[in-house]
């Protein structure tokens, strides 16, 4: 550490009587400072000790020079000593500032290296739940149809034969009932059954409301079929109905096409194939270009380029007879989609049972 030997003595004692000798003494001190500053700047503790030795108020070198060299200096030398001392202070200040910054930066760097967290480790995770794929699909469908003015209504799953069949122009012993094997409820007063489609709400809504009617009906439906990979005895539908004085087949086509583009993507095209449902006429099966291959043909669409979306059509005037609507003034369209099928198609789910096993490994994916 600093050898204080010469600054403990007065200049006179050191034999310095001329300005030149004063300068030379200061030069020695300065050289010593530079040497020590270089030697002590790599370690924070050493550096702090070094600073105290030189700039400490009580017995630092600068204080000692002031006390031992400046104060007792002869009037002739006082000016030279003062000047040299100021220069030395300025020099020390400059060097200290510079070294100090470097030392602090190094210390910070070292600390940062020590504290660096492992970004690949997980944070504290809060478990968040999820919506079922079917519900998400419903939400999407309701948004799509809500945007073009379709209101949402719901109806009972345990229905009367009248609403499920008769009022939809499906009398008893109609062959169309072949595709709708039905579960019946024991001991129900009205021969109640589990609705085979969401269409009964067409009737219930028109009974209650005057046109314009524009509704979608989400809900569970049931058919007494033995379940397999592609069919269950319960599935989800969304029914649509629009009736007014000015609804035409073109509106029907436009709505269906809007839906397909909104649900399957803007490049989707639709086509209608004539079909038959007792409660619509003309009736159609709605096909969309395959969402996987875009219509060029692939395994999903069985090389046809088309996938069947749902059945639909213009409301059969016979249905208006059941709800006291004037068939000569009113017209409309209706559709019924299988939501499970749409969801499976869109997300590539391969088997119906997966939807309702409710395995968390499945639920987590959506």
């Amino acid at each position: 550490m600093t050898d204080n030997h010469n600054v403990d003595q007065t200049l006179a004692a050191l034999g310095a009587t001329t300005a030149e000798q004063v300068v030379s003494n200061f030069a020695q001190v300065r050289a010593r400072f530079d040497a020590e500053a270089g030697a002590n700047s790599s370690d924070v503790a050493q550096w702090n000790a070094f600073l105290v030795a030189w700039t400490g108020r009580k017995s630092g070198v600068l204080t000692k020079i002031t006390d031992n060299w400046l104060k007792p200096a002869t009037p002739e030398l006082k000016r030279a000593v003062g000047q040299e001392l100021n220069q030395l202070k300025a020099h020390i200040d400059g060097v200290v500032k510079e070294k100090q910054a470097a030392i602090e930066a190094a210390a910070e760097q070292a600390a940062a290296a020590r504290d660096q967290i492992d970004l690949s480790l997980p944070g504290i995770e809060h478990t968040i739940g999820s919506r079922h794929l079917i519900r998400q699909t419903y939400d999407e469908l309701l948004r799509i149809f809500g945007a073009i003015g379709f209101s949402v209504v719901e109806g009972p799953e345990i229905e009367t034969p009248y609403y499920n069949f008769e009022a939809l122009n499906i009398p008893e012993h109609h062959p169309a009932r072949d595709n709708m094997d039905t579960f019946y409820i024991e001991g129900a007063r009205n021969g109640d059954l589990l609705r085979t489609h969401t269409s009964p709400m067409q009737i219930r809504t028109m009974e209650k409301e005057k046109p314009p009617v524009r509704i979608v009906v989400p809900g569970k439906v049931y058919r007494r079929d033995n379940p397999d990979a592609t069919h269950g005895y319960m599935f989800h539908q969304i029914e649509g109905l629009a009736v007014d004085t000015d609804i035409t087949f073109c509106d029907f086509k436009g709505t269906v096409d809007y839906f397909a583009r909104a649900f399957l993507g803007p490049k989707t095209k639709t086509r209608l194939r004539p079909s038959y449902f007792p409660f619509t006429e003309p009736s159609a099966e709605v096909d969309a270009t395959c969402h996987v291959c875009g219509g060029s043909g692939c395994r999903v669409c069985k090389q046809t380029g088309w996938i069947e979306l749902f059945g639909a059509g213009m409301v059969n005037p016979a249905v208006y007879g059941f709800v006291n609507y004037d068939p000569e003034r009113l017209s409309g369209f209706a559709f019924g989609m299988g939501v499970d099928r749409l969801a499976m198609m869109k997300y590539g789910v391969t088997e119906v049972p997966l939807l309702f096993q409710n395995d968390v490994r499945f639920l987590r994916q959506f």
Partner: protein
Amino acid sequence: MKIVYNELREFVDIAAPAAEVASKLSLAGVAIEGVEETAAGPVLDAEVTANRPDCLGHLGIAREVAAIYKKSLKPLHPKLKESAETAVSATRVDIEANDLCGRFTARVIKGVKVQPSPDWLRQRLEAIGEKSINNVVDVTNYVMFELGHALHAFDFDKIAEKRLVVRRAKQGEKIKTLDGAERTLTKDMCVVADGARAVGIGGIMGGAESEIGFGTKNVLLECAWFDPISVRRTSKALGLRTEASYRFERGADPEMAEFASRRAAELIQQVAGGEVLAGVVDVYPARHAEKSIELSRQELLRVMGADVPDRDIEDILSALGFHPVRIDDLRGSNGSITAVWQCKQVSWRSDVTRGIDLIEEVARHYGYDKFPLRLPAAKVPARRLPHAVALDRVIERVIALGYREIVEIPIVDTERDAIFRAEGVTPAVIGNPLAEDASVMRSSGTVSMIRALEWNLNHGQRDVRLFEVGKRYELRDGEPVETRVLTLGATGLAQEKTIHEAASEYAFANLKGDLDRIGEIAGGFEWMGGGPSWLAPSRAARVSIERGTDGPELQHAHHVGVAGQLARKIAEQLKLRQNVFVAELALEPLLKGVEDASAAKRFAPLPRYPAVERDFSLVLDDGTSFDDVSETIEQLGILELHSIEAADLFRGGQVPQGKFSLMIRVTFQSSQATFTDAQLNGFSARIVAALEKNLGATLRAS
């Protein structure tokens, strides 16, 4: 219905490849599911809709093809070499049940040689998946698939008294049908009988005793028209579905009966020889007068929204046999808006009786693709379901709390359902279930929730939190009632061990905390001990919503549901080896609570002065509840009392037997000024005194 392409070409001149015809048929309404190569050439597999019995024969499909390709249908002219003897002199037919049988024709062919069919006939039948039997029977089948009308051939020598009568069966009457089964009939069924007994079930299947065999010499050929509903009812009741019943129940063409008979007689004579007796016995009580239908352009425009040119309308309707004729005043003028066409109602299309039916015919052949796309103008705002916003808020919460939504099939096992059924509930039982374990509409959401938890546990998923928004079902006085419920279920770890946190089991406190987070958006839940028998008695609760400000009639708590841990004996019975927690809440009162609470929300000014907390470590007798403690403090009426929380609870150690230690944290908040020590000490002294006096609490030195 399988269509032999080459047979189709006998009715209509087309050169197009089968695949092209198939695709055009599909776009015109006869869905072709596939095209298959056979020894008889390409065969099209047509999925014929229930309204088109005419397409259950090659002729009907050919008519569609003719309309598509704008060709005319080649007529079929059966040529018979008839003998001098007449059919009328050989047999007679009486229809006693003319509501069940609208027409019955009989022809007699004598001296046939029954033998295997010639190759062409056998091939045609095999191509469409039919087995060849013998030449006479094969002809009746061939003509059925050709013309779409079912026929039946009897061994004439086995017909007693050489006459037939069409009547209702006698109750319990028996007949052995062609398939060898003995059938017992009821009195609403239609039979074809001879002088002695039933020899056939009308429109469904002939009897075995009068069957054509290799020994048959003389044939009586039946070609009739049976009532669709009667055939369908009988066929369902007997569980006997045949190609014949399939056609009759969809509405066969009564006019076709005699023609199909003539065509079959021609072919029988061709492949089995014999002489056809002159004429036909034809009893036709259901003969209809010819009717007409009108199609107007105005109606077409009103329904379709875009026009179809006159020429196309007329071509399409003509090709389909409707004979359109303009009858409006401007019939010379092409494209007139007032154009009206009168069309013939045709016997083979019982589904075409109204203007709209003709519009459909025109539209499907003109091409659905030619109508432009439009969106209808929305005239009224779209409504969401009632309470949809409140339900969204509840579901957001539940998901934020970590529960995953499930969707369950609500048809469940009866025994299982009974476990979780509330007292006095009559379940909605399915009268014709597919399986025993799916035979009742669930009486609770819980039964499904337990199933889902069980499934996950059985598939190695041990830490599960689930919820379902669904319905429970019941009958009340024979009327179905469907109630929407929110069901929560959880088991396993609430917190898995991580580098940051220790593991913790899902406990009742998790369920309570989560439910209270849901309850707080519905105005807050009230908890009461006790619950249904399927919950563990010490971990069971009823939850209700306090209804405060809604008017006197609603000032009682509204019961919402139950929550707790599944009872041990039920968990054991269901082989659930982990603690399982469930809550089932009725959705309607909950959503009402959310709506009320949301409507009642008002801003409260933020306090300007600091709140102060004071902790009290109490030693209390077992059985004293936290509620007892907070009520005691609240009753002091300290206006500055802000909240009371339970901060720590333990038993044992220095706490004597029969007592427990509870640390409560009381927060004071003033809107007037900063508290002075004297004030706070005053509060504390009153609180301690009240707790000592009312609950025998002692303050623990801390």
